[in-house]
């Protein structure tokens, strides 16, 4: 049995990679992604410090202006400065993205651990999760936003609920897989209690896939926010988001394409970067892919 392929774990690869940075052949993509994302985040966070206009200041004489020196991206149907709105809109869009990712991951992790651990709870939880997955996410989200009013919180909740079952399934499958690992059995033999094993041995296994999953949720949440706005169930337009700027502007697409183009560009760049980072994280953290390339 000398030549059996040696199984490796994700962390091992990460640690190995850390000690051998040369092996990190990430390419230029992720680096650009990090730069773009950082730029967008900084632009959004510090928007109040540099935007030329109050993003909610209307002017009925300045409606739907094209790009100009005064209004870099032009103005929207209320005469508000589009540039100020787009960069400020990043705040809420990113908040929704990151918020949804964190909430989904935390809730999913908790439920998934319970599900992977308690066999009886598992049956019930998985049925409920199957049901939630079966309900079309957008319809559920529209209904939820209608239920609780179009606030940021309710949009986050609406995006989170359909994501949770996916996270739960992921966590549960990792937990069930890791349960069979000899080191977990060794821990049982060492007299460790089940909750302790769950938390100290099993839970850490879920972290790398959750980080990857979290980035994808973040990206898709930003996108879903836009679609909710498009369908008329997004955040109130008093608070700009990329989604509701586009939703407001979509009627004027042919008259003033900038209303879709600029927020769409920011949104797409942002999601693109997040997805690229997610892919990179997965490539690094997924031991199976790494093994093949080694």
């Amino acid at each position, binding site marked *: 049995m000398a030549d059996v392929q040696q199984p490796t774990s994700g962390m091992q690869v990460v640690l190995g990679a850390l000690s051998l940075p040369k092996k990190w052949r990430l390419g230029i993509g992720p680096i650009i992604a990090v730069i773009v994302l950082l730029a967008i985040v900084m632009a959004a966070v510090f928007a109040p410090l540099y935007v030329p206009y109050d993003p*909610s200041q*209307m002017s*009925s*004489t300045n*409606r*739907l202006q094209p790009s100009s020196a005064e209004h870099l991206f032009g103005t929207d*149907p*209320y*005469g508000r400065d589009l540039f100020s709105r787009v960069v400020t809109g990043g705040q809420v869009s990113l908040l929704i993205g990151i918020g949804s990712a964190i909430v989904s991951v935390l809730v999913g992790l908790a439920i998934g651990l319970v599900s992977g651990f308690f066999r009886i709870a598992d049956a019930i939880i998985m049925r409920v999760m199957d049901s939630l997955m079966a309900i079309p996410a957008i319809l559920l989200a529209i209904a939820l936003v*209608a239920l609780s*009013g*179009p606030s940021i919180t309710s949009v986050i909740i609406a995006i989170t609920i359909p994501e949770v079952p996916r996270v739960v399934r992921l966590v549960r499958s990792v937990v069930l897989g890791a349960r069979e690992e000899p080191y977990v059995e060794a821990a049982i033999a060492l007299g460790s209690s089940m909750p302790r094993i769950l938390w100290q041995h099993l839970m850490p296994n879920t972290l790398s896939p959750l980080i990857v999953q979290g980035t994808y949720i973040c990206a898709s949440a930003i996108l879903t926010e836009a679609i909710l706005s498009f369908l*008329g*169930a*997004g*955040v*109130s*337009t*008093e608070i700009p988001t990329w989604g509701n700027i586009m939703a407001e502007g*979509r*009627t*004027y*697409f*042919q*008259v003033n394409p900038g209303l879709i183009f600029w927020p769409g560009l920011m949104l797409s760049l942002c999601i693109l970067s997040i997805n690229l980072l997610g892919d990179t994280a997965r490539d690094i953290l997924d031991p199976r892919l790494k093994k093949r390339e080694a």
Partner: protein
Amino acid sequence: MLQRERKSIGLRTVQRGGIVAAVAAAAMSIPMAATAEETTITAVMHSSLRVLDPITTTAHITRNHGYMIYDVLIAQDENFEAQPQMADWEVSEDALVYTFTLRDGLLFHDGEPVTAEDVVASLERWGNRDAGGQLIFDVTDSLEASDDDTIVWTLSEPFEPLINTLAKQAAVPPFIMPARIAGTSPDSNIDEHIGSGPFVFVEDEYDPGQSVTYERFEDYEPRDEAASWMAGGKVVNVDRVIWTTMPDSQTAINALNSGEIDYLEQVQVDLLPILEANPDVTVELRDPLGYQTMGRMNFKHPPFDDKRIRQAALMALSQEDILATMMGDPEYYELCGAIFGCGTPYEDESGAESLLAGGDQEGARARLEEAGYDGTPIVLMQPTDVASLVNQPVVAAQALRNAGFEVDMQAMDWQTLVNRRASMDAPGEGGWNIFFTNWQIPEINDPLINVMLNGRGDEGWFGWPEDDDLEQLRADYIAASTEDEQLDVARKLQAYALDEVIYVPLGQYNMPQALRNTIEGMIPSPVPVFWNMEKRD
């Protein structure tokens, strides 16, 4: 009736469309021979038709549908005058007995003749739902069919506006349907759609929310007069009319541009440039009067239970700001401080000076100060999914804030708003303080039709002002026996309503329609009608 000069909005276009139409209508007294090929008009309407019962709902689209397949006893012409449609009428000397005589040749779509019984049943169901109708029935002694063609309506006391109420196209017009259908409870929807109007509803092709199809009613006998608004001869020159809905206004415009549809009921003014370059499409104003946009405050809860704070709010608002944001192009809006609308017999703008002058922020601040406004936030409801209503709250919220109000603007879909405005709870507990909506001018142009002027508190319209003076003024109007007296009462109402800020008229706007040049002869009217119209190749 007073003949007042009409203040026209976008006069050039109206005249072009309107005069051509009128001439064409006069010339076409004989129905055209059916052409070899079926003519179909595909029209994109402002909203989708979901409710088919024109008595249970006041939705415009359902009323428009009603005028397609039903007919009315008496109809309003473009001079706001009542004209015979299905019936002629006579009034007794004491103004207590009205006798209606049905004209010959009236048939329902199922082939049955229209009888006086049907009319009575239809009027009774209508009277149960329509605010004006209720007032009439309050003073009704009897409503009977004396023979197959004659209806006799006996009142206990005179009700001067009876004929106008029957003729109106606002809220719920009294459509005539067979007695068996009119027997449906006024609280449930009818499930059979048979009228005696110029078009037949094609049940099989009805797709709620998407499309509805009408066919020409071959046995309809139009009157001989030229068509004018809802009155006159409804001559149908096309075989089929399909109403569809397009949720995306840009899609609709593109479809019109490429000839996939024939008619677009409303075009957002901002999008007109897309159509302008196209020589095959005409953009025009169909209805010279258009809409009134307005705000209503809640009289039940602070701070708007205080007249001075209502006044402060009124002073803070500027019609120009709101209308400009809504419409963009000044050709399509008009400042108007008249609660009964401009271009109507009762037009009067007294009391609306600040609204017309771009607001009076200082005055508003001072009035707020004087009233001792304590900073209670105002719950302002903003619908996000109705294009013609999203702007007013946003602009108003800013103006109110500038005047010193604390504004809590809450976005919601229109259905939530409609539900929430019915709540009499405190604003913090699911109630509200102020919201905005739009009316077609014929829906508000007199003291009986205008629901906002109801001062009966909880029984009245949302906002629930409990105001005996207001009620007295309305009673005066009913009791007024001459047109001059009526006009006088209307003027008093205008002054009173703006002083008490019963509601805030925010001006008048109009949405142009667009049609392919193959469509000719559409008559100018608040209700888009498809009779008189022709489609050539």
